[in-house]
């Protein structure tokens, strides 16, 4: 490549073009191998990511302005309607909340009796989505909070309806989160009805999860709610994940084909919530590594 001369070699003199390409290719390959084997290049990523940050803001601005316009042009009438509706809703919620306090106290008492550990009672904070990953085979989102806001790698991301995903990389002001629908994401779940444990895999489609490890005779019905089991240690237990949408039992196959629809609207959310778990996971869940979180980064 280097010594080859062509008819247009005279017209443009770029010194040692072939050599430079070869050197740069070698450098890229080394970088890729290094990046793939051990994820040690976070600082480099963070530095360049900080440089791209203003651009992300600029790109995000039209959507923000649109949202603001919609908000500010809503008519007074509909605002009043909404206000009344919200007041009623709040009253109802308050009533439920009173019950909840009683229930919580009762739950704590019962747990004391059983000498069980407390369930999560972590901190929650709302984060905005700055952009979605443009890579079609990676379902991930960029959040507008970073290590400045105490976000850490592996943190759970939820929305009002269920689990959305988990934080993959934290930058200073932004962080990248992987969605549960990403083909590389696996999530330990249990069936809310009977406690049956399994793993929900992402399929690359926003509206579908796969549950490939359930035997044909598993007690599972369409409409069953799947919640996080907390066994991977990454997610707090008890958050809704998906609803079983299809169970197909083929007698020759050892496993049933089960599909589920995520509870969270994965491709519609603009705001998500981050959970800070108060205490590290219990040792018993550490031992259970084969059920654990299998997030492979390409």
């Amino acid at each position: 490549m280097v010594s080859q001369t062509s008819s247009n070699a005279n017209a443009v003199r770029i010194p040692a073009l072939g050599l430079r390409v070869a050197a740069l290719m070698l450098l890229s390959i080394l970088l890729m191998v290094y990046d793939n084997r051990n994820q040690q290049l976070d600082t480099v990523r963070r530095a360049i990511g900080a440089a791209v940050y203003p651009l992300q803001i600029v790109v995000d601005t039209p959507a923000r302005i649109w949202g603001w316009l919609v908000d500010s042009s809503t008519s007074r009438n509909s605002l009043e309607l909404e206000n009344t509706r919200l007041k009623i809703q709040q009253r109802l919620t308050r009533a439920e909340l009173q019950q909840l306090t009683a229930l919580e106290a009762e739950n704590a008492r019962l747990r004391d009796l059983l000498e069980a550990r407390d369930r999560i009672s972590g901190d929650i904070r709302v984060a905005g989505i700055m952009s979605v990953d443009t890579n079609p085979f990676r379902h991930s989102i960029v959040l507008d909070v970073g290590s400045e806001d105490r976000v850490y790698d592996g943190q759970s991301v939820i929305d009002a309806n269920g689990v959305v995903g988990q934080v993959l990389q934290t930058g200073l002001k932004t962080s990248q989160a992987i969605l549960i629908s990403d083909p590389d994401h696996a999530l330990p779940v249990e069936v809310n009805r009977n406690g049956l444990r399994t793993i929900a895999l992402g399929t690359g489609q926003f509206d579908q999860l796969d549950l490939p490890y359930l035997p044909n005779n598993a007690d599972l019905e369409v409409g069953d709610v799947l919640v996080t089991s907390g066994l991977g240690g990454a997610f707090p237990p008890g958050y809704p994940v998906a609803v079983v949408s299809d169970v197909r039992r083929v007698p020759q196959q050892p496993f049933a084909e089960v599909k589920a629809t995520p509870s969270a609207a994965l491709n519609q959310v603009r705001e998500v919530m981050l959970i800070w778990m108060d205490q590290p996971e219990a040792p018993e869940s550490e031992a259970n590594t084969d059920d654990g979180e299998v997030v492979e980064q390409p």
Partner: protein
Amino acid sequence: MSSRSSVGTFGMLMSVLAALALTIMPLPAAIEDFRPDWVMMMLIYWAMVAPQKYSVGTAWLIGIVMDVAQGTMLGQHALTMCLIVFVTIRFHLQMRVFPLTQLTLTVMAMLSAYQFLLFWINGVAGVTAPATVYWGPVITGTLIWPALSMFMNGLRFRRG
């Protein structure tokens, strides 16, 4: 030729930044797979009209920024863009005198090669994806190229 390629570095930087913005802009999921490779097309354009100024080194650096912006392995886009720009520079004199249809077909070949290299590297690294998602950007990129190159030519000659 030197007066032609005397476009400011500022203009080049702005065009690449615009391409990058178009690349990271959120799109509805339905047309997400058909987002053209704006940055690659912009780099092909600049390598064709001003190969002395914007060569493989520039392409490599921009590729690294792409890797960070898209969350791919560091070096994946860098390697691919660097290679495609190299090919462009090898053939830039022919490409300049090509009629538009022929040039567009050449660019289509390059965009296909670009997607193929990305696909290949993904395969080696073990990232699986349906092969169909790689075709969308090639198709839209090819369709957009004539307009893009004419637009850029217009900007360049007005300034120069």
